[in-house]
Every structure is written in C-alpha cells, then in structure tokens.
C-alpha cells in the first residue's frame, strides 16, 4: 500500500451557488494519497458538504478541478460514480424496503447481480452485524441499524474511494465502535476514505491526515499529531480546531 501517490488532486476549487451571491468554496487545494484515511473538518457552513458533493459529481464546480489519478481512469462523471461510494449524513435509504433489499438495490445499481450480489450483501450483513435485522423494514429499525445499513449501502460495490459525511451521528457507543472497526479494516485493505465529522476525537482516532476548512478555505492540513504539535497550547485536535475556527457560534 503506497501512501505517497495522490489519487485525488483538488486544485483551486471554487463553488458559487445561484441566488444571493455566496461563495461556498473559495479555492480549495488538496492532495489525497492512495489508502489514506482523510478527515475533512470544519464548523457548520464551512463548505464540507459542498466539497463532498463536488467530489461525488452531484454538481459541477464554478472553477477548479478534481482529478482522480488511477491507472487508465478517464475522469468522466460516470467513471467517477463507479469508484466512489457515498455515505451521506442523512439516512438515505428507502424506508419501505428492508435492510437486505436496500443494500441489494444499491448493489444492483452498481451492476452487481446474482451470486456476486448475494455474496457481497451477505458479507456486509455479517460484518456490520445486520443479519438478524435483514428482513426488517428500515423505517422500523433503530438509529444504529439504520446508520449501519446506510454505511453498507455506500460500500456494497467495494469502492476505491469511500466518502463518509458524519456517519456516526446519533448512534450508540457499540454501533460507533463497530463502524470504526469496520472502517479501519477497509482502510487497511486499501480503500481511500474521506471522512467528515464534528467529533474531533473521532478524527484523531481514525484519520491519518486532516484538513480543517473554514469559510470555504483550507486553514490547516497535516497529520493530527503534527497539527497538534505545531500549536503551542493545544493538547488535542478539539482545542486546535477551536483555536483555528474561533468560539463564535456558526449558522
């Protein structure tokens, strides 16, 4: 596993939304290497979700580029969709479908059928301890089961890049631990992970590198240890974060 080759290069990325003039991103530059567990941190309205949306091809940037540097990869939107897995902050599942049906559906949309699909879905159900809930409608499931199903649905096609937008919001300690273990395992197996969270301890525990974004700009980048060391009176990432972004309440 190489940690040197940037597989995602983000250059001078700008995004301006229509309507009242608002620059969500004001020139983001990031290099994410293969197999990295990359944390994107920032207060509310910093531009994290916009960055993730652009990365997943939900809408085009106003300026700048995002390049995926895989061998023979053509960077078309359809090609990007095949290598990326998104786990959104919302429980983006079909409420009337069961846990099994939801995971299968997202697999089917990625072109998985028959035995391959069954094997993959069964593997995910087993790994995320969802087997006994497989037949339950997601609308009837607890928050933890929904979160794990949400994760499985984004992972079912074994993406090269997994994008997680606050995947542990509202889950209990056990579910969170299970999700962490699974993500670490995926990362060890070579999946590049982009992770946004408001929980600084999560970022410190999981991420090999982080970028702190505020007001549409990257204000700090590096490994959590290096960033903490650089700050004289910071003992952890949480203190560093508050020092850099301030204590004033955001939107």
């Amino acid at each position: 596993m190489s940690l040197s080759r940037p597989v995602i290069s983000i250059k001078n990325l700008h995004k301006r939304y229509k309507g009242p003039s608002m620059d969500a991103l004001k020139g983001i530059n990031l290099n994410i290497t293969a197999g990295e567990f990359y944390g994107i941190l920032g207060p509310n309205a910093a531009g994290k979700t916009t960055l993730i949306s652009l990365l997943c091809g939900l809408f085009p940037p106003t300026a700048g580029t995002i390049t995926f540097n895989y061998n023979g990869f053509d960077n078309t939107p359809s090609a990007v969709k095949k290598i990326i897995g998104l786990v959104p902050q919302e429980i983006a599942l079909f409420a009337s479908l069961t846990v099994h049906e939801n995971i299968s559906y997202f697999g089917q949309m990625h072109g998985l059928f028959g035995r391959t699909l069954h094997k993959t879905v069964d593997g995910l159900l087993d790994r995320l301890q969802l087997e006994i809930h497989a037949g339950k409608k997601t609308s009837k499931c607890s928050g933890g089961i929904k979160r794990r199903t949400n994760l499985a649905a984004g992972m079912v096609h074994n993406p090269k890049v997994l994008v997680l937008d606050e995947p542990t919001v509202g889950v209990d300690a056990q579910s969170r631990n299970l999700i962490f273990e699974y993500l670490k395992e995926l990362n060890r197996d070579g999946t590049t992970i982009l992770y946004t969270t408001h929980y600084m301890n999560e970022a410190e525990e999981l991420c090999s590198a982080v970028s702190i974004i505020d007001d549409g700009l990257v204000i700090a980048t590096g490994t959590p240890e290096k960033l903490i060391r650089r700050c004289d009176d910071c003992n952890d990432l949480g203190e560093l974060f508050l020092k850099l972004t301030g204590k004033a309440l955001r939107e």
Partner: protein
Amino acid sequence: MRKLYFNIRREILTLIRDKAGLSILFLMPLLLIIVITLTQQNAIQSVSSATIELLFIDHDQSTMGELVRKGLSGSDEFNLITQYKSKPLTDSMVKALVARGKFRVGIIISENTTEEAKQKIISGLQTLIEGDEKEGDTAKVHGIRVLFDPAIRDIVRISILNAVKMATTGAESSLMTNVLFSRLSEVIETKDSVSLMILNALQDVDVDELPQQVVEVGESYPGSSNVIIKPNITQNNVPAFSLFAMFFIVIPLAGSLIAEKNEGTYDRIRTLPVSYLNILTGKTVAYLMVCFLQFLLMVLVGIFVFPYLGLPALETGNHYFAIFVATLVSALSAIGFGLLVGTYSTTHNQAAMFGAILVVIMAALGGIFMPVNMMPENLKLISNLSPLRWGIDSYLNLFARGAGLVGIWKNLVLLFAFFVVSLGIAAKRFS
C-alpha cells in the same frame, strides 16, 4: 435493462407496502363511481337550465313539422339549427355530426308525416265508431326520428325525448282538431250522412278513446361502429371516473419523489452510475401497472357489480386494442402529471393538496361532472387544455360512440405529448 427491472421492483415493493396509499388508489375511486352513479341516476332535475342545440330537418314541410318546430323552439331550452356552415342540413350530415359528438341531438321529421298522421286519425275515428279494427290500425306513423349522440348523459337524453314527445303530442292534438273541424265543415256544407253519423257518434265517445300518439318518435344512436351501445349513465361514468382515479396517482407518485428529495435518497441516487431517466422510467412502469389494475377493476365492477346495484351493466364494445392504447396513454399522462407535481412541490402536503385539487379542476373542465357542451363558451375553450378532457373524450368515443383508434388518435397524441413533456421536465430538473 436489469437496472430498470430492479428499479421497477423497488417501486412495486414500495407501493405494495404502502397500505394506506393503496387503499386510496383502489377503494376510494370505487366508492366514488358507485356513489356518484347512484346519485346521478336520480338527479334528472338538474338539466333544465342550459340551452341545448338541436339539429332540425323538416322533410314534412306541413302542419306536423311546423307544429313540432314551434313546440320546440318556443321553449328556452332548445336552439333549433337548420344549417351547418351555411349549408342546409341533410340526413347524412345530421347523422355524422351527432355520431362525432359535435351535436348531441338531431331531429328529422319524415316526408308526408302530416298526411299519414291525418289518415291515421281519420282511420282511428272510423274504427272508434265502427268498432271494427282493421289490420295495421295500431301501427304508428314513423314520422319523427331523434338521433342522440351515444355519449349523451341519460338525464339529458330523457329530458330531450320528453320535450320532443310533448311537442309531437301537441302537434297531433292540433291535427286532430283540424280533422274534426274539417269534418264539421263538410257536414255543414254538404250535410253528408256519413260525416253526420261520425259527428253524432263522437258525442258518445270518451276523449281518451280518440286516436292518440299516432306518430312514433323513434330514437337512435348513430355511432361509429356496428355495435349499438345505448347511452346510459354507466357508459359515461365508468370510463370517466376510471380516468379521474388514474390521475389521483399524483399523490403517491409525487409523494415518493418528494420523500426521495427530502430524505436524501435522491442525492444518493445521483451518485450512482445510473441515469435519472432510468429511475423515472422505473417509476413510470410501476405506476403504469397500478393504473391498468385500477382501470381493469373499474371495468369489471361496471360489468359485473353494477347490475346488482340496479344500474346498467357496462358495455365495452369491440375495440379492445383501442381501449388498451387509450388506457396506456391516459395512464402515462396521469404519471406525467404526477412527475410534474412531484418535481415542483417541496413537501408531501403541498403535493397532496395541489395535486388533488388540480385533478378535480381538470376533471371538472374535462366534463366529468357536467358535459363540456353545457359549459359557458370561455370554459369550453379552457377545457381543451385539460388532459382529463382529452382522456374523457377518448373514452367516451370508445365506450359510448363505438369509435376506434381512428376516432381518438388526436387526443391520444395530446396525452402522449403531455407525458413526454412532463417526463422531460422532471428528468431535466432532477439531473
């Protein structure tokens, strides 16, 4: 194609599991057609206020024709039309115009009706006096034909028929008086013994025994096929309300789009390597199945359940393929409407309120509650923009007028175009 199959499957599972939504889709429309049909069956009084245009041809050109014309035109309810596009009406023109639904009624008074009616009255009087009924005395004069648009509402048809019969009876009474006066004149002038004998005999005759209804008012429905379907409330209501029900899929369909938008699945779907058109096509196919099931259920209830409720059974004619195509494009149009509402609404309540009310408005404009030809002129024009009008007209042409695909193709093109435009707008907006 496999992805499409799985999209269809997902939509069907979602639909099946929404018990409340399904009950709205199937039970409510059934309740609607049964209740409204039963109600309308007895609501004859509501027809009177509008002026009805009657095509009128008088081949008789004598007393009967003149008196029937006066009887009908004397009423504010009817406007007698004797020319179409500046040309005098002919029998074939009247048949064609009524068969196409351009006019709802045509009246043709046959040649020599007055003369034949006179003879019938005289012969009836002689029979009364002599007490010896000759062969053919009971046969009526086939003098007046009333041609009805097969899609005419039953209450309107009955009302018009009664008015024509009243005018005819009035004309017959005048004719009888004429005959009697002319006999009286003959007695006075000639002192003819036979006429005198008749007049003497008539002194003992009860008025009720005088020849009555000597002229037959015949009724016919010039449809586009050989199958004669008698107009009745079932032929109007079952297809029309089936279409009405179909458009109510706007609520679950728009609801599913809104739920996907609000719950994040829509954004997630957009990160999948599948076009949104594929997703929308999946929805379209699933809801198309629902619409067909709805329609089938309605038709089966019309055929098999209505007779048990004392209502006429639905007759489907013989244009099954045309009915299939009309149902297909009507359902597509309803789905297109659902997609549009779902695209532009932001909450489920908004879509439910907006969609449902708009369906009722479009249905009213389409002539589901009141025939379009009884609407004010400006409303008639607006009604041309209602997809429900296009659908209802197609179904009435098929179920009541016995038309085939040729008779409804323009409406089918409009319905399909509406679907294509709606799908295009939704796909563009979502992608």
